[in-house]
């Protein structure tokens, strides 16, 4: 049953590596199992992803190739609109027992997108993984066939959970200081005209005068006819 293995390395974008705010470094070992063509067992081997260092986040992905049987089973699932489930077991230096994560994609979508998926592992600053998500990559590439066998096209991203922002008091105080300075400077030469400065007080008064004048024009007029 053992198939050829294929090793390829995906270099992560510099974006993730540079913003990594992680307190801990160590190795990360992910064992991937899926529920496809497994004979009697519920889950069987799909591959593994190994990271030598969490901080650098460079994965080594090693996955099986799908044969016709796999594809048959997947097509069967797709016909029933069922899920293709992947179980991941993660072991790290701290956690040698391993923690299990489960994720599923629609078999139909997985098949349509040429067995390509995106794997996101979310990691806390203390080095613990909270979730491993499999999602179908939005690529309409056809199935890659290499002598009867189909290559799984997986992309792996290690997502570091960042620190949440805190109330930004320091820069606010700085801004207040700047504003105050600007005001002090500005107060010296506020050379706007009188009207430009106080129009908001003048206009209501003017309206008031106009209206009180308009409502009783006869009262002030001389009585003579």
């Amino acid at each position, binding site marked *: 049953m053992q198939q050829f293995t294929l090793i390829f390395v995906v270099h992560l974008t510099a974006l993730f590596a540079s913003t990594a705010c992680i307190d801990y470094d160590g190795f990360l070992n992910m064992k991937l199992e899926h529920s496809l063509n497994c004979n009697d067992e519920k889950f069987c081997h799909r591959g593994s992803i190994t990271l030598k260092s969490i901080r650098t986040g460079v994965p080594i992905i090693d996955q099986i190739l799908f044969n016709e049987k796999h594809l048959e089973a997947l097509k069967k699932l797709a016909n029933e609109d069922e899920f293709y489930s992947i179980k991941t077991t993660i072991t790290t230096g701290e956690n040698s027992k391993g923690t299990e994560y489960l994720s599923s994609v629609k078999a139909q979508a997985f098949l349509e997108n040429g067995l390509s998926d995106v794997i996101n592992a979310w990691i806390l600053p*203390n080095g613990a993984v909270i*979730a491993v998500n499999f999602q179908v990559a939005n690529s309409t590439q056809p199935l890659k066939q290499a002598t009867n066998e189909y290559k799984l096209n997986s992309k792996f991203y290690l997502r570091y*959970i*960042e620190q949440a922002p*805190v109330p930004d008091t320091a820069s606010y105080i700085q801004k207040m200081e700047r504003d105050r300075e600007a005001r002090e400077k500005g107060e010296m030469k506020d050379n706007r005209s009188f009207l430009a400065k106080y129009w908001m007080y003048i206009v*209501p008064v003017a309206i008031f005068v106009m209206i009180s004048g308009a409502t009783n024009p006869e009262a002030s007029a001389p009585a003579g006819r």
Partner: protein
Amino acid sequence: MGNLSINLKPNFMGLLKCLNSINWFIVFFSLINLSMCIYEDQIGKFDWRQSYVGRIKFAQFDTVSTARKIIVATEENVLAALNLKTGQVVWRHVFESTSSGNIQLLHLSDQIITVTGSNPYLVRGWDLSTGVLIWEWGLTLQKNEHTDFSEWWVQNGLLVHMVPKFGSHIEVSVYNVATGHNRGATSKLPAVWINEGCVLSPPYYTCISGSPGNQLLLSMDVTSDAVQIISKPLAEYTTARNGNLNPFDTNTVIPGFLLNEKIILIRGNKFEAINIAISEPSASVALVDSASGPLVLQTWNDEAKGFTLMAHNLVSGQRVNEIGWSDRSLSIPEPELSAVICTKTAREQHVCRILVTAADDASHLIQQEGRVLWTREEALANVVAVEFVDLPVSDLDAAIESEFDQKEAAKMHSSVLAAFTRRLQSQFQQLQGAVRALLAGDAAAADEPPPLVRDYFNLHKIMVLLTDTGKIFGMDNLSGEILWKLYEPNLNTEAAVMFTRRSARHPPHDAYLTVVGKHEETGNGLIVSLNPIRGTPVGEQTLHLDVQILQCAVLYKADAQKLHALILLDKDENVQILPESSAPLVENMYMHVADRSSAVVRGYALRHDGERVSAKNIWSVDLSGGGSQRVVWSVSKPAAERIHSAGRVLPDRSVLYKHLNPNLVLLLTEGPDPVHKDVVVATCVDGVSGGVLSAHVHRRARRPALPLHSEHFLAYLYYNDKQRRHEIATLELYEGPERWVPAGAAFSSLRGARAPHVQRHAYIVPAAPAAAALSATERSLTDKHVLLALSTGAIVELPWALLEPRRALSPAGEAREEGLVPYAPELPLPAEAVVNYNATLLRLTRIHTAPSGLESTSLVLATGLDLFYTRIAPSKTFDLLKDDFDYYLISVVLAALVLATYSTKYFAARKMLKMAWK
């Protein structure tokens, strides 16, 4: 925006005042409502408050002061005075909700004496009539053990504190009540015979001790200087092998106790068995003084006769006939005599006032002949869940609706003639109704309560309140009146949920509401279905499942009877559908379950395979972060939420599209961290696919609380340990300048891998928030406002614009044009934004909001020790004329204008005629 309007308001109001003399302007400006708060004369017009005290623990009648009161101390750690005539709270003191506020003793003399806390204790004296604190002293015991069983009482102006150490000795300390001066230090009385079954009847401490079959009844006066033990074989008093001691519920006369339904008094250092039979083992027995000597009162809930009360003369053993009755109409489960006062009238008749507290936390003050003077539903001090239910339309409206409905349905079949006769018929009915209403006039309308039908703006609703004790109330939202109540003693309301499964919009069918809770004893699912309008059981009625429930939901599709099925996922991951017939409707249904302690969240896909519905575990995430974190909150979006716009327009006329994922769940976890002390992790998970959309960590933070979730934004509070303050974190999810799915297409969580852009920020909350909620309106057209209940007893209404994470510190030209408020780290909590003006609400726990038929208005109910209902208009009442709109003036003005037009026309014609003659 809020900031702006708050600053602007005084100017505008000043301007208005200045124009006050000119009525024209008042007419014009009355169309624009500028104020956010209410006017003084509007107090109580849209809102009401009900004060509660909690289940009564100790109660005593105040016989000293002139204004008759009952002084109560409650399990909610409240000391209050209730008006004897009305039952209303005269004054109230709310102590700490923790054990330090626990009331141990309530004693009434010329002042009220209370002992609160549990080592350290606080002894306080209160004024009887005003409730003002007169004096206070503290007491800290050196040894903290055994204080759980300690007892307090007041004897001859001295406060006695007794700490029994079982199997060893009793420690008794006597203090001067007012000063705390320790009179004779602490004395240790040797008593190896005391155990946990002992009862105190001051000053006697009584126990049953010895080997079975050879037991002794022992009693000791713990305050006397010489240790004197009364000892008698138990067999002298009871034939039962095991004696069971019980104190009286109220005793103001002679020390005594109950031994297996037998009254035994201690008189002259001797036990004295009284030959008065206790009719029911569960009866509550009280010993009270009256003019004709001490009386023994007993009460219980008889299955056949209902609530029963009986009285005997203690000396003669004779039944006192004028006190004692049975009432089938009173439903007082497990009554307990909290306080009794008996006097005698001029005609030598006993007059008793009895305060009875029931298992449903209700307190009733009952007078002679079983007349209930008042009832206090103290269960409402602990509301767990609230559901606003629409009222049914009136019969006439229903007839019109059904007519048009039929027309729609049977357009093809019915003839024109049939439709015409129907039209005539219903028109005749309407005419009849109108005539009847006219004839009945205003007199009838004023006396009768408004009928339970929907009003034009759908502002009148029924609030169904589920309380901690398992009592369910139906309450009128406009008056706060209790319409119906239903007590379900077996219902454990911990984590209970309520669903409105059918609204009253479907006339032939009644409204249908379901409470899903746990059974008190077994912990299995208990489902109560009822008609929320009348409070009568419907459908499944009370259903006790034989398995524990893991998760429950309501099916989004209704069946032929317009009933939404209830889906239950049980502990063995089996699915139950109620009613069973709705099973074929299950399609595309997903559920998730978060385990609080292990922090593992599992997602299930539900599928109907033609026969039954099965759940398949399709995803699981482990938020435990190495085992230390636990889930504190899990919030999804409110069901059936409407979204008005899919994006926001930016100053450059482009649109920033919101990420409106209906399946988004916010999970808040907290736990210790080796480096950063405590951390809080907020994770946004898609409830269908299990995909994490965003996650972030708050370092040195604790107690994440009060999550809010609506549309594309989320907010939650936490306590910043480093700065020692409360902060609110806000998030907004955006898709970006382009839509992921075309307009109108359904959102699918399973479609593909795309992460939304997350905007986030944090603000300082300069107060201690106790509850939070978002305003809800029917079409979400109005702004969203956040209601924050503070521990000071105020509810502050804040516009979301102030919490927006997109607020920049110094907005550049474009952002300024968009109207974003510049960033300020502290949230303003202005006094004008307090919706409950000066009506302080104590110990608020939750705020519930519901939409009304008016788009501008959202209904709000705050629960806690008090209930407070009001309505808010986040974007002002744009669809409603102002409350004091001057109809009279505007009609006079209009009439005058018309008159002026015609008169000028006439005069103009006359002038023209004169001109022509010239």
